[in-house]
């Protein structure tokens, strides 16, 4: 009897001090399965028949790291998607040739996405890659200059021609192919088009005039070569796959104990509690599911905008631009323009739900991709978690989604959730993917 009293007095309290591991019930295990099954290869990209061609990936890798794609010779894709900064740039909004208005997303796992850009105005990785080249605040170039640059750089020309055949002829004729020539981007006409959108500048007219002066065949030749370059860049980006993170090793210990890599101590107990919150009271999994921790769709989380700030509409603009984009999946440069393949484009819906909505970003590698949100408004993970708890104010357009419920979390719970979000960082990709190839 004395012994059991001694046990009750000394041993039991000591045991209680060891933190209790949360138990993941059947429902949580089913959700966990959705979050952790990291795909080894990205989904097929039928509109790009070079998507999995290793030569295309190598050529694309050269282009990705080459500042020569911008006429100033100073900005490459890697300027804003820096492998050492989680394939982002660590800035609230990107700085290319000048300052942009959106945050650069990570490219890790980007090939898993269904739509590209915060407003989803591209439906493939390869058509996305064409955007920054002509964006006046990013690389401020033109398709004509880029194609000419490839043609005039012997290594690039060789790599290009091995894959795609002869480059357009007569590129050194500046009358036929004027410097800076590019078409006026198609302008959305819907009610909520974004008049201040920097990708649709009102200046730049000489570039449009130059383009209009070209023959239809020459325009077509440039577009085709431009699309091929995009397809090569996409082939490279498809190699930026997400490596298992501590979270995945922990999830394996819950779902398939004893499996290779499974480790029940891979994340702290605080982070385990945070994971429970993520799938429970905080309901983050409603939008941040799939192994990307993104549903790959668009939601209005209701960010406030200051009175003197410009706001952008997000998704409605993206839908319209996508439909008008000649480089979309049903356009003449797609390798699979048929209706059957382009289900997502065909049934795309433009309605009031899309106002003020942005794409759910991946939460993978969050620890490396601060600041957060489409405009980089939050510096820390803690600020993001606090935002979801408070949901302050109202968005300037549309309405905040009802899925968001202001979960009441204690300080400890918010810390736990943040601890969980920090367990999603993967080890870096092999060094040979993080620089231009030899």
């Amino acid at each position, binding site marked *: 009897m004395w012994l059991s009293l001694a046990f009750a007095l000394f041993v039991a309290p000591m045991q209680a001090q060891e933190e209790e591991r949360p138990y993941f019930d059947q429902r949580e295990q089913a*959700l966990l399965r*959705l979050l952790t099954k990291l795909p080894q290869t990205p989904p097929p990209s039928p509109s790009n028949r070079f998507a999995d061609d290793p030569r295309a990936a190598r050529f694309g890798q050269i282009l990705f790291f080459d500042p020569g794609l911008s006429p100033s010779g100073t900005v490459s894709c890697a300027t804003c998607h820096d492998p050492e900064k989680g394939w982002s740039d660590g800035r609230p909004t990107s700085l290319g040739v000048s300052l942009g208005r959106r945050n650069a997303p990570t490219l890790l796992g980007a090939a898993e996405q269904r739509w590209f850009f915060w407003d989803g105005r591209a439906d493939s990785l390869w058509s996305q890659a064409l955007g920054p080249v002509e964006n006046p605040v990013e690389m401020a170039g033109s398709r004509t200059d880029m194609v000419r640059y490839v043609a005039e750089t012997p290594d690039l020309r060789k790599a290009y021609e091995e894959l795609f055949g002869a480059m357009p002829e007569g590129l050194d004729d500046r009358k036929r192919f004027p410097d800076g020539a590019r078409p006026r981007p198609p302008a959305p006409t819907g009610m909520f088009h974004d008049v201040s959108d920097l990708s649709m500048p009102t200046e730049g007219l000489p570039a449009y005039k130059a383009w209009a002066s070209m023959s239809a065949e020459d325009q077509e030749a440039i577009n085709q070569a431009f699309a091929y370059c995009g397809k090569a860049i996409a082939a490279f980006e498809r190699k930026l796959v997400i490596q298992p993170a501590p979270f995945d090793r922990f999830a394996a210990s819950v779902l398939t104990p004893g499996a290779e890599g499974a480790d029940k101590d891979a994340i702290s107990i605080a982070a385990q509690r945070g994971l429970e919150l993520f799938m429970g009271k905080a309901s983050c999994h409603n939008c941040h599911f799939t192994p990307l921790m993104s549903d790959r769709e668009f939601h209005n989380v209701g960010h406030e905008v200051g009175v003197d700030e410009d706001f952008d509409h997000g998704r409605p603009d993206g839908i319209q631009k996508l439909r008008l984009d000649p480089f979309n999946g049903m356009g003449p440069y797609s390798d699979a323009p048929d209706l059957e393949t382009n289900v997502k484009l065909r049934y795309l819906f433009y309605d009031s739900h899309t106002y003020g909505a942005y794409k759910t970003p991946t939460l993978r590698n969050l620890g490396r991709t601060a600041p957060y949100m489409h405009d980089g408004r939050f510096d820390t993970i803690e600020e993001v978690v606090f935002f979801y708890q408070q949901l302050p104010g109202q968005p300037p357009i549309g309405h905040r989604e009802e899925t968001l419920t202001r979960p009441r979390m204690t300080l400890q719970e918010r810390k736990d959730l943040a601890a969980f979000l920090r367990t999603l960082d993967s080890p870096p990709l092999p060094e040979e993917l993080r620089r231009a190839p030899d």
Partner: protein
Amino acid sequence: MPRFLSCAALVLACGACQLIAPEPVIIRGAPDGPAVTLTQGTLRYQSSVEPFPLNEYCSIQFVAEGTELIALEFDADMPAHKHGMITKPEITWSEDKGWWVHGMNFHMPGAWVMSVNAQTTEGWYQIDFPVHIGPR
């Protein structure tokens, strides 16, 4: 005479509204139950991907038995989130394939309701099919 006319008009008008807009029969299906009983016959749905996939595109076939389905309208939403569809599905009919809803995507996990407006040879029905998508 005028009295007779207005009476006739009234009768005619009522007859017309009977034809054009009779009251629909409202039916709520059982949770995840793919079939409902109509005044005459049954209406059943079947997904091209079973069970309904979470956040993937699918097509849904509607099959009437013991009656003929002559018109179909389709909508779906998540009542708890006041959230509708991200796609605009297309309804098709052909003699060999029957009635199909193409381009549906249940993009969020949880409780959805498919609302179907169905006209058969006997009547007009507003049917709710509650479905659960994703893990429970």
